[in-house]
């Protein structure tokens, strides 16, 4: 393992599900600024496209996973209303984006193994651009509602997420010498990929490192381009047993490994003993081990990236480089799809593609492994998504079969 065993967290023990299931269909909604649509409507559009992509009918779906937070989601009732179906469904509320965009694959694999479902749909959508004005602190609303944060953090203006992660970035810069240019390299790579991806919200809005550095900071060291978009959008993917998937329309992309890591030092960022690390330290080794791959085998990486510092911290914590060397690792064109380094967030990520909390990252990895991506990595065979929520992080390894 690349890191000495840290004692501030642990990995969740996962049964080996390597190769048992495949992602057979992927879809995204239109990604837009405020659209006036509900998140349920947005999710339904993504699901229609995922079904088309897989060549499945709505009546084929007998498992559904979603996240019961973040506004209305496409739950089983909404699915049936939208598609006019009535089949029995296996249901899990541990789906959606963020950490769950990866771990849903593990739970789905067990459900499929146990015969609870044959075709499991995972969906997630947000309408936070539409709802922004009614939310306290925008996407910070769930943090504003948390009572310890209300009492001990918000009154001092340590709120919302850009402020948390700017503080973490400043400390990372202090500990490891990470620079603004290195943060900027992440933003520039994501923007370049978005400019190659017609569906990206920031398509047609080029960004150079010079322009990045010339822009003002909004919360030091972050500029606007260090921070994720706020957009309306959603995504969906469908998982089926690998032997069943071979008979479907798309090239086979297997779930090769899944891991979940947990911090044991509380749920608040201020409390994290490992202030400049993420629980990817605990998530990634298990996923890589289940998949039988090493970081060097990874052809394309997508990471949950609300801020540029998340790329650097997770790249370190997943073992793509040593802790503290993430800054030098991302410099120049190292993250570009054609840069000869580690192709990263090749659709543009949360920074430049769309703010759909990771589900579109999984869709992008699947497209890369099928050879269907807009910013295609030549001959990509192993792809990884890393999810993050703060006290948890997750990794899913996908493999072209």
């Amino acid at each position: 393992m690349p890191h000495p065993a840290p004692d501030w967290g642990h990995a969740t023990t996962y049964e080996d599900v390597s190769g048992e299931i495949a992602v057979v269909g992927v879809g995204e909604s239109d990604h837009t600024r405020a659209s006036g649509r509900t998140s349920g409507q947005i999710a339904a559009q993504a699901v229609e496209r995922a079904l088309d992509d897989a060549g499945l009918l709505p009546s084929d779906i007998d498992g559904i996973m979603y996240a019961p937070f973040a506004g209305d989601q496409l739950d089983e009732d909404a699915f049936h209303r939208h598609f006019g179906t009535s089949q029995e469904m296996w249901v899990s509320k541990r789906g959606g984006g963020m950490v769950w965009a990866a771990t849903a694959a593990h739970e789905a694999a067990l459900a499929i193994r146990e015969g609870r479902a044959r075709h499991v749909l995972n969906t997630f959508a947000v309408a936070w651009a539409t709802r922004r004005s009614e939310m306290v602190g925008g996407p910070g609303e769930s943090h504003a509602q948390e009572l310890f944060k209300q009492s001990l953090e918000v009154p001092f203006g340590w709120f919302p997420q850009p402020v948390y992660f700017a503080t973490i970035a400043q400390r990372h810069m202090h500990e490891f010498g990470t620079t603004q240019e290195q943060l900027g390299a992440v933003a520039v790579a994501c923007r370049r990929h978005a400019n190659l991806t017609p569906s990206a919200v920031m398509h047609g809005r080029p960004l150079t490192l010079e322009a990045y550095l010339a822009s003002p900071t909004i919360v030091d060291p972050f500029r606007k381009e260090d921070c994720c978009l706020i957009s309306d959008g959603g995504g969906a993917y469908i998982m089926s047993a690998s032997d069943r998937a071979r008979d479907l329309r798309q090239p086979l992309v297997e779930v090769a490994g899944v891991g979940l890591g947990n911090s044991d030092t509380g749920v608040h960022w201020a409390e994290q003993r490992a202030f400049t690390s993420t629980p990817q330290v605990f998530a990634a080794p298990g996923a890589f081990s289940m998949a039988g791959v090493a970081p060097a085998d990874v052809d394309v990486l997508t990471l949950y990236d609300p801020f540029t510092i998340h790329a650097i911290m997770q790249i370190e914590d997943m073992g793509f480089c040593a802790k503290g060397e993430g800054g030098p690792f991302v410099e120049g064109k190292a993250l570009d799809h054609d840069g000869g380094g580690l192709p990263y967030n090749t659709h543009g990520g949360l920074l430049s593609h769309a703010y759909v909390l990771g589900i579109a990252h999984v869709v992008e990895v699947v497209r890369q492994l099928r050879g269907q991506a807009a910013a295609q990595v030549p001959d990509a065979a192993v792809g990884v998504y890393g999810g993050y929520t703060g006290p948890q992080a997750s990794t899913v390894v996908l493999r072209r079969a």
Partner: protein
Amino acid sequence: MRPDFPLPDTEWEPTREYWAAAARGELAVPRCRACGAYAWYPAQSCPACGHSSFTWTTMSGRGQLFAWTVVRHAFLPQFSAEVPYVPALVALDEDPAVRIVTRIVDCDPTHLSVDLPVRVVFRPLSFPGIDREVIAPYFTPEQG
């Protein structure tokens, strides 16, 4: 959301003693009666030993700057008149694992550095349109 958000609810039980101490000009954190560990943020049980009773203990108010940022854009309208301001995490001298979220005041932010010695100062916290104020623990660099 409470009408006086983003002022703290000083009556909320888990942090009531924190704000009561601040009103007296003291910085207090809960300390485990069994093992003496500081428990921060306040918790039902001691993270070190699992015991569940605590004594709110007055601290020296001295610590080191662990991390900070300069907020130049008001993410909440209530902070529009405050920007730029410097929210920070301070690691207390008695136990640097206790990090207090605060603001650094009376200092040019360009003079700040990690591990800078700081000390607590108590100031009224208030927001436009809210006719209540709360005495809050801020920090400032130690002089000399």
